């Protein structure tokens, strides 16, 4: 077995995904900023699974570094999973463009920059899988988080186009749309228990769906139906709502 590359590796979802893939026999490249803070976590995986874990520094906003980052991987990965995400603050993003820009750059531009490079390699090799963690927030703009939601919507569209493009090359592209997940990012929010997934459940879903070759994964599954309803509320009514 060989390597899976996980970017945004410090997030709780990424950590759960890392453990899941290692458990199933994959070695890992974990990439993030200040990645050395993951040393204990890397050791955790190695003791649990006896897999190799390599830590690699990556700043997703430093676009020019991405090609070098990828070229430097001695053994190219079998697949890549992006857990890059930055929620930011909606209010702030409405008055402070720096905040808006950081949300857009992190959630969208950064991933596109890196995924383009990897997609070109996978296309040439005619194999590989690419998983982008987007969000149900990208399915419809809501006043409470539409800056973040719009960046995720852009990412969702990008992934769907990439899937279309790479179909012929047999490269599998999967879009993951988590609903509420109990993580550091959401720890101060009051989330409904029944709709909130643990990172481990999300990781398990991602692994299963990737093995099956799914295109779009909602996790928990209930969110597919919730979003179906939310997407279909007429704009005339939706704009007056507070959800």
């Amino acid at each position, binding site marked *: 077995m060989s390597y899976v590359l996980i970017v945004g590796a410090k997030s709780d979802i990424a950590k759960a995904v890392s453990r899941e893939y290692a458990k199933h026999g994959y070695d890992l490249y974990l990439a993030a900023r200040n990645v050395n803070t993951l040393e*204990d*976590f890397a*050791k*955790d995986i190695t*003791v*649990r*699974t*006896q897999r190799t874990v390599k830590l690699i520094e990556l700043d997703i906003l430093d676009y020019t570094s991405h090609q070098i980052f990828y070229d430097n991987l001695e053994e190219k990965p079998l697949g890549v999973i992006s857990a890059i995400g930055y929620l930011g603050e909606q209010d702030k993003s409405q008055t402070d463009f720096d905040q808006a820009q950081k949300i857009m750059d992190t959630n969208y531009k950064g991933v596109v920059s890196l995924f383009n490079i990897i997609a070109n390699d996978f296309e040439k090799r005619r194999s590989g899988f690419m998983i982008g963690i987007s969000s149900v927030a990208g399915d419809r703009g809501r006043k409470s988080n539409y800056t973040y939601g719009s960046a995720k919507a852009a990412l969702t569209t990008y992934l769907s186009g990439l899937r279309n493009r790479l179909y012929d090359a047999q490269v599998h592209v999967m879009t993951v749309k988590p609903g509420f997940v109990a993580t550091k990012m959401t720890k101060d929010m009051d989330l409904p228990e029944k709709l909130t997934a643990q990172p481990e459940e999300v990781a398990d879903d991602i692994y299963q769906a990737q093995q099956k070759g799914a295109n779009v994964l909602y996790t928990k599954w209930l969110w597919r139906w919730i979003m179906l309803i939310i997407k279909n509320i007429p704009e005339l009514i939706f704009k007056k709502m507070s959800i």
Partner: protein
Amino acid sequence: MSLMSWGMHPKVKSTVLVFDKTQTLKKIIDEHDELIPYGNGRSYGDSALSTNIINVKPKDYFIAFNEKTGLLHVQAGVLLSEILESFVSRGWFLKVSPGTKLITIGGAIASDIHGKNHHIEGCFSECVKEFLITIADGRTLTCSKEATPELFKATCGGQGLTGVILEAKIYLKKINSQYIDQTTIRTENLRETFEAFEACKQKPYSVAWIDCLAKGEKLGKCLLMTGDFRSDGKLDYKKKKKRNIPFNFPSFALNNLSVRAFNWLYYRKIKEKISQQRVDIDTFFYPLDAIGHWNRIYGKSGLTQYQFILPKATSYEGLKEILSVISKSGKGSFLAVLKLHGKANDNYLSFPLEGYSLALDFKIERGIFDLLSKLDEIVVKYEGRIYLCKDVRVTKDVFEKGYPQVETFRRFRRENKMDEKFQSLQSKRVGI
């Protein structure tokens, strides 16, 4: 946040505190009192409940493993199930394991848990080489039986009242199969049950399932299960999908009749006097884990487990008396687990002593605590004791009579000002 343990009673308002570094933990301890560590909430009662709880479960890193000696170094929030997932296929198993694998290492040490092999291997503390603990003054210490014997003896079985365990080094044991050769012996009464236990003393694992509603002649009839690991080299241990009880059952679901029916069916399933089965680790050690949240069967008001132990000399008399009271009351449980224990260790509050223990689940309903108080009297009369990690109601007086080293424990807490910081609902009730 409203918090509870496995028995779902009581539910208490509690502030949940988490920490990343030891400095944060020190700060938490400095700034609060009435603190208690919380693992995976698999204790039944109120030993992990307090105004402020320190959630240790997120500390779940594996740190190192030595293939030669079987010494595993982990953080205290690691679950036993995670250890099994990683190590059974590599030929290792826990030296001591309780009837559920969904508990943390911290919880295992704090309750000094016992398994089906207590008569041979003793309590969990036997496999603990050392642990790292943050105590009341904010210091983080490495504790071992040799270097810091008092802290060790107070912490193992001390129900989180000495501080927060952060990491532990524990020995695993080698196995050559994930299958167990199980022998089931069916007995007709308590006398036969005792004889069967004594006859199987050499078997590494043993436990009996008692029909606690049987009366008269049949009082104490049981299925005794003994076993040992096979040596067939089959180690493929996979996580099974489990079924979940999604909501609390309405209270009528668990009446006397259904318990009777269950007992009867279970007992009848095994036809022969002695039979052999080959079962896997999960079936033998963790039958209840296959059904997630089975505690919800007891309904919203919850359940309690009554587990007591009697010294060998008084076990037969005492059990007979207790079983008669229970069968007369008509209040029974799905589970009445009888176990033979080996010698007690010197930890101040560890539960096991040489003799027999019985554990029964009771639905919390009117009159139940009166019944249990009646049982307490018998336990005291026969010089037995109650297991703290299952308890939610025992009185100070009854508790003290069972634990001769309680004064040593109290003194140790006072001297180290642990009593000013670490308290649970239980510790206040029983005065420890």
